[in-house]
Structure formats: C-alpha cells, structure tokens
C-alpha cells in the first residue's frame, strides 16, 4: 500500500479539489482528510459514516475551588498564560501539561480528559474515507491527524485498497508534519503568485527535511504565465518533477457549488483532462 499527500504551503491553491478528483480516478482508494480544523473534502465526496470515534486530545487542568488557597503559584509557573488573574483555568489556552498540578501546594488542581474532536471512517462512492473534526478552538490537531492516518491505513489494509491519498492542511507546522511523515510521495499544489512561490519553496524544504519525494503542480497557471515559468525553472534547477499545469476555469467553483468533483461534473473540461493525466503519471510513479 502506498501513501500520497497533497500539500500546498499556501492555502486555497486547490488541494481539496484535486484530492477529490484523485479519489474518483483511483476508484479503490482510501482518502484521508487531514485538514482537521477546516475539513472540506466531505462536501465533494459525501461520505456515509461507518464508524465514529471520540478523540481525546490533550487533558485540561481543573482547579478545585474549595481546596484552592489562592497562592497564585499555578499562574506563575504556567508557560501558556492559561491561568487568569482571578485564578481560573482558560481552557482554550491550557495545553494540559500538568505543571499546575505539581506546583500546587494543596493539591487543588487535577488534569481531566477532554473530548477534543471526533474521527470518522466512512464509505464513499469510490472507496473509503478517513476524516475528523476538531472541536472549535481545541488544540492538538497534529495528534488528530495521526489518528486519521492510522484509520486510513487500517481501512486500506482491511479493504485491500492499494493507495491512501492524504489531503493536508495549509502551512508547514505540526499538523502538516503529521500528514507527511512516512509517506511515499507528496504533491505540492501551488499557484503562480509571489505568495504561492514563496510558500511552495518552504513546503518543498519541509518535504526535503523529512526525505519525502516531491512533485509539483501549478494550478490556475494562466493567472500569471511569467510566474508559472519561474516555478517551472525553479523545479528543473532543483530536480523536482513538474506534474501538471492546470488552467483557471470557473467550472471548478461551479462543480463545488454542485457538490461534485470537477471530474464528475465536467469530465471533458481542460481542467479534468489535465488532472486525469496528472493522476495517471503519479499513479505509475507510485506503484
């Protein structure tokens, strides 16, 4: 079984739209939506949930008001400013590290488990999907990404799917790192803007740091052809394979509005043709 992650660095370049098309083209894949704090893939793939799991992320500190002697040591030692001036726990800022529980002279603080989100395994028309939803304002998205990936892997083994396609989140921090460790390859989707180029380079550096083979695809290439050429020559100079150049086409948004992937909604469009040829090349390289 192979694992492919779709990344971008910059948000909004088209990761999810492309991932959803790949799911359709792969026919028997497990798709993992690892953008757990703003997941969108379900709106194109319409999963039917088979299994639901509660995600217990970090714990949270709770102060027993009756025991508390208001000494303020917990506030002083907290590295996350999670104890307010009137010595209450700010649950959103609390990392659940437990320092307050050990510095409290009267044992008035304890760590309790909290439910930080929900993970799902679902059936989709074209295979299976592992996804999740982090509760609003909760931290620890990295751990939830790891759980989604484990679910995707076990489902792929059970259902004999030969590929796991992972939709990552923007950025290069903890949830992104959790979505690329140990994968066979990554496709970075970029756009020909200065921001897109800047963020692509940082994403590629991250993939290189974790020794992941990377491919690049330029979405909406015709918005700025000069920048597209710059990205292509950057890829050539750095020995990175360019895997697709997708034109700007309002059909992509239109298909999203209709709850469909562009491949299903408009199979004959230039966008669909390019994504299909990209997938065929990628699939050959992976297996």
């Amino acid at each position, binding site marked *: 079984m192979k694992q492919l992650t779709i990344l971008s*660095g*910059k*948000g*909004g*370049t088209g990761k*999810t739209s492309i991932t959803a098309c790949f799911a359709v083209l792969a026919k028997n894949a497990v798709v993992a939506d690892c*953008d*757990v*704090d*703003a997941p*969108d893939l379900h*709106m194109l793939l319409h999963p039917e949930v088979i299994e639901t799991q509660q995600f217990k992320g*970090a*714990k949270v500190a709770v102060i027993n008001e009756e025991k508390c002697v208001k000494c303020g040591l917990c506030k002083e*030692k907290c*590295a996350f400013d999670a104890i307010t001036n009137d010595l209450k726990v700010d649950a*959103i*800022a609390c*990392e659940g*590290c*437990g*320092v307050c529980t*050990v*510095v409290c002279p009267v044992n008035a603080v304890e*760590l309790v488990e909290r439910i930080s989100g929900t993970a799902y395994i679902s059936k989709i028309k074209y295979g299976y999907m592992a996804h999740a939803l*982090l509760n*609003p*304002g*909760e*931290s620890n*998205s990295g751990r939830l990404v790891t759980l989604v990936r484990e679910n995707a892997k076990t489902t792929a083994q059970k259902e004999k799917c030969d590929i796991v396609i992972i939709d990552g*989140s*923007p*950025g*290069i*921090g*903890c949830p*992104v*790192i959790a979505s690329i460790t140990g994968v066979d390859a990554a496709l970075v989707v970029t*756009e*020909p*803007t*200065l*921001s*897109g180029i*800047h*963020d692509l380079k*940082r994403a590629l*550096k*991250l993939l290189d*740091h*974790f020794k992941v083979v990377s491919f690049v695809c330029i979405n909406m290439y015709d*918005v*700025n052809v000069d*920048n597209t050429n710059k990205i292509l020559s950057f890829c050539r100079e750095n020995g990175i394979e360019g895997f697709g150049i997708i034109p700007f086409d*309002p059909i992509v*948004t239109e298909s*999203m*509005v209709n*709850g469909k992937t562009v491949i299903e909604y408009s199979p004959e469009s230039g966008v669909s043709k390019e994504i299909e040829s990209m997938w065929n090349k990628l699939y050959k390289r992976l297996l």
Partner: protein
Amino acid sequence: MIISVASGKGGTGKTLVSVNMSLSIGKVQLLDCDVEEPNDHLLLNPHIYKTEPVFNLIPRIDEELCTHCGTCSKFCQFNAIFVSSDQALLFPEMCVSCGGCAIVCPEKAITLEKHKIGVIKFGSVENLALVYGELEVGKPMAVPIIKAVKKQIERSENVILDSPPGTSCPFVETVRDSDFCLLVTEPTPFGLHDLKISIEVLRRIGIPFGVVVNRAGVGDKKVYEYCEQENIRILLEIPYQRRIAELYSKGIPFSSEMMEWEEKFRALHKEIAELTQK
C-alpha cells in the same frame, strides 16, 4: 484598536485585506502572525532593519545525575521523554516547553535550554511598521513565534494582525485579545463551511467580528443567506476581477493601482472603529 484578519479556509484573501487596509489608514502597525507561511512582506517590500531569534525551552538531561527513575517520563503528557533502565531519551519535536520535567525531577538532573525555532523580523514602509515571524522549516510549534510577534504590539497604535488559516491553536493565539476580528471568506461551499467553524470559535472566546466577502460574484449566495440569518454584518465585498488577481500574483497591493479602493478600506477601518466603540 487591534483588528485581527482571519479565515477558516486558506487562500480567501487575508493577506490581501490586511495589506491593503494597512496601506489605506495612515500610521499603522501590521503584524503577520502567519509564521508558517508569512506573505505580507512580499506585497510590501519593506526595509528590514532588525531580525531577532525566537527560542523555546527544551530539557537537557544530565546523565551523570540521572538515576533513570522515570518520574519525568511519567509526568510528560506529550511523550517527549522516554526513560529505560540505563538511558533517558528526549524527543524535542514532541516537547511543548512546559518545563514540568525539570520541576518533578527528584535529582535536579534536568535543566532547560534555549533552542532556536524561528525569527521575528522588523521592517518599515513609510507609515507602516511591519513585524513578521518565520518558523524554521521542520519545527512544528508555531504558537511561540506568534506570541513573540504579538509581544511587539503597540497598544496606542492602529494594529492589524494577519492570522494563519485554520481554526485551531495558531488562529486562536492570533485573535486572542483583539478588539475585532475580520473574517475573510469567499462565496463558495468551502468558504461558508469554514466561516461557520471560525464563527463558532470566535463566539466561544467572545471576540466581536464581521465578514469580508472576497471574489464576490463566483460561487453561490449561501454565504449571504447565512450572514443574514445570523445577523452578521458583511462589511465589505471585493469582486472577483482578473485585474485584482493579476496584481496580487505580481505582489502589488491592488489599492495602490485602483485608487477607489483606498477609500473603501479607509471606510472599512472607520466602520470597525465605530462598531467596537458601541
């Protein structure tokens, strides 16, 4: 007044709004809190006059003093220390720098050492003071750098914070303590879905907010319907225009080429000021 500019979905136009509003309102401090992928400087070409390192504290275990009792490992909620019968192993990428292991170690074998995880940079363009953070590639923790950027806030000034995408810790850390949060969205199903999550978080932490619809004209009308139902103000609409997209792609703030927008961003800022005073 501190305004944060955020969005659940990435690529909806946070940077576009932050930069153009900052350039339209006179003296301002713009803080780019998207430390994983900072972009504001690409549109501003500021003169960078100072760069400061940002550190977090990672334990160092003195093997001479360590008795491998395992107390630190038992304490650590993040599995950042593994202790066997003859060795203590540290996984710095798991460490959140709480410092608890050093407190619980009965042998005082653990000290905390500074590790560089990124930088913050200071720049300026005319009336605009820019501060932005840059997480070192490969380091997972963005929040300490966001905190370092936010330490530079000058409360007496007009401050604009450009938030990273998403709705989890980096977003929460950025918008905390701001007077108003401007949520930039696009009129598509993805834009609406992620807007709703952001609003849930902002309601939970109690920050007033309003919406900017970018790329107006594409997609559908559901963002508008939702805002009307929920009584949420749409403070500005930026139409989808090829010219705006092209200028952005070249790193040119569109309000400097399409002058009528300078006035619109000034009016937006003024309206937010009035809303927060009520």
